[in-house]
């Protein structure tokens, strides 16, 4: 199911049960991942394209998400100018233990750029001192006080999310 929520920067491709029946796509073989497992195993294939290319690909990916072959995907509605990528980014989420199977689907749909990213890596880059958070702060032109507040908020948010290793991971609001 392709979900384009008003006000969201991202377009999501989620199983319809995620919307209607609270299905948690962050699982492996049907077992939801704990925070600890999420940081160890969960990640994504990432690649870029024009908005039009990604819109077309999303339509072709949707049936694989409905069949639960691909857990979920998201992509940029618009290019994020702060990061100077020049294209929209698509992320295809899955557990590393199923990434080869997911890659085969992507390859069959014509995806050529192959880059695997663990979620842990992404999170570290959004923590104070991390490349993404610091680039974002710099390009938004925050005052030193505002920048410090953003860093503190990021640190607190991640600390709170992962304080219990054994709790089921429930996702990040985006």
């Amino acid at each position, binding site marked *: 199911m392709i979900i384009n929520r008003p006000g969201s920067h991202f377009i999501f491709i989620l199983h319809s049960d995620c919307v209607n029946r609270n299905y948690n796509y962050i699982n492996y073989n049907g077992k939801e991942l704990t925070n600890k497992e999420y940081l160890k195993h969960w990640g994504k*294939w*990432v*690649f*870029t394209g024009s908005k039009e290319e990604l819109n077309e690909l999303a339509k072709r990916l949707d049936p694989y998400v409905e069949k639960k072959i691909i857990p979920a995907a998201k992509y940029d509605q618009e290019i*994020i100018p702060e*990061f*100077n*990528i*020049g*294209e929209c*980014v698509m992320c295809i989420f899955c557990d590393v233990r199923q990434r080869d199977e997911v*890659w085969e689907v992507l390859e069959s749909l014509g995806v*050529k*750029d*192959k*880059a*695997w*990213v663990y979620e842990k*890596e*992404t999170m570290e*880059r*959004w923590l104070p001192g991390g*490349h*993404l958070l610091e*680039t974002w702060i710099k390009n938004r032109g925050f005052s030193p006080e505002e920048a410090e507040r953003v860093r503190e908020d990021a640190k607190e948010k991640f600390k709170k999310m992962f304080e219990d290793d054994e709790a089921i991971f429930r996702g990040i609001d985006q």
Partner: protein
Amino acid sequence: MKITIRLAKALTNFTNSVKVIDFELDEENDLANLIDTLERKYPGLKKALCNMEFEIKDSINIYVNGDNVRYLKGLKTILHDGDQINIVPAAVAG
């Protein structure tokens, strides 16, 4: 051996907009050698990818067959025939 390099659009200003480069390299070459070889063909690319100490910049991710070389052997990662190298701004991984 034949190596395929795929560059993100943001990096193609160093390669005359060429996104996919097929390269012939001698056996047992590592990523550092590949970057040096690329630099001879596309001047400025090495500086865009690496800092003065010849380490991969924080702002760049390099993948060999889908795996980030930071978790392999960095620039000392040995390349093999048929490998695909993807070079992207690190922000893509966000």
